[in-house]
């Protein structure tokens, strides 16, 4: 999926992402090109430096993986409720 909000994955959206990811028991990892980070760690999420237009892959594994993926996709596609 693609980061659509103008300011990119800055601190506030990254924290929203981690908050949603934490609601699910499965493991969540986020890939950007050849870099993969823990989607439940705010420090790691900030390392992606994902600007507007950046493509990210979200991989959820374990219990409620499908629900987690759907919730995170909705969040990112909705631009984290930003412009």
């Amino acid at each position, binding site marked *: 999926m693609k980061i659509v909000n*103008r*300011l*990119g*994955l*800055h*601190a*506030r959206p990254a*924290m929203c992402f981690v908050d949603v990811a934490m609601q699910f028991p499965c493991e969540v990892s986020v890939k950007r090109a050849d870099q993969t980070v823990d989607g439940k760690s*705010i*420090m*790691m999420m*900030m*390392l*992606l*430096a*994902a*600007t*507007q237009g950046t493509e990210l892959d979200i991989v959820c594994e374990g219990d409620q993986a499908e629900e987690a993926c759907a919730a995170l996709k909705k969040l990112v596609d909705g631009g984290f409720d930003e412009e």
Partner: protein
Amino acid sequence: MKLSELITSGAVVTQLKSQDRDQVIHELIDALIASNAAAGEHRAELLKRVLDRENRGTTGFGRGVAVPHVKHPSVKRMAAAIGLSSTGIEFNSLDKQPVYSVFLLLSPEDRPEEHLLAMEVIFKNLSKETFRRFLRQAGSEAEVRSLLDDADTQQLAG
């Protein structure tokens, strides 16, 4: 982007006077103004914006570090200050623990990509236990500078 270039020369406070979040942010904005990285006339507004941002969601991300930040039209060039506290600062952190190292980042308003790259380079280092430990132990700006140079040349283990 290099961490050593991001941190404004002269804007490293190795012994923060305050243990209070708002006062610490004050001290670091003053350090950036004294180092000519920010304009004194915008002092009150910069402070207000950083605190507003902090009140909407803490940048005390845990592990004893916080990265308060703000974008402002008066900022022409990305600038950051470092503040260290040996006693710890109550920062409303995600892990409820005190903060010992604070990075305050000022960014121009119209360059979100640069802001993200700056955050990336800061977090890349703050996520390393070695970096956090050496930073806390640094007793002078020169020691912090030397650590930043090591970090830029990848001489620190994860």
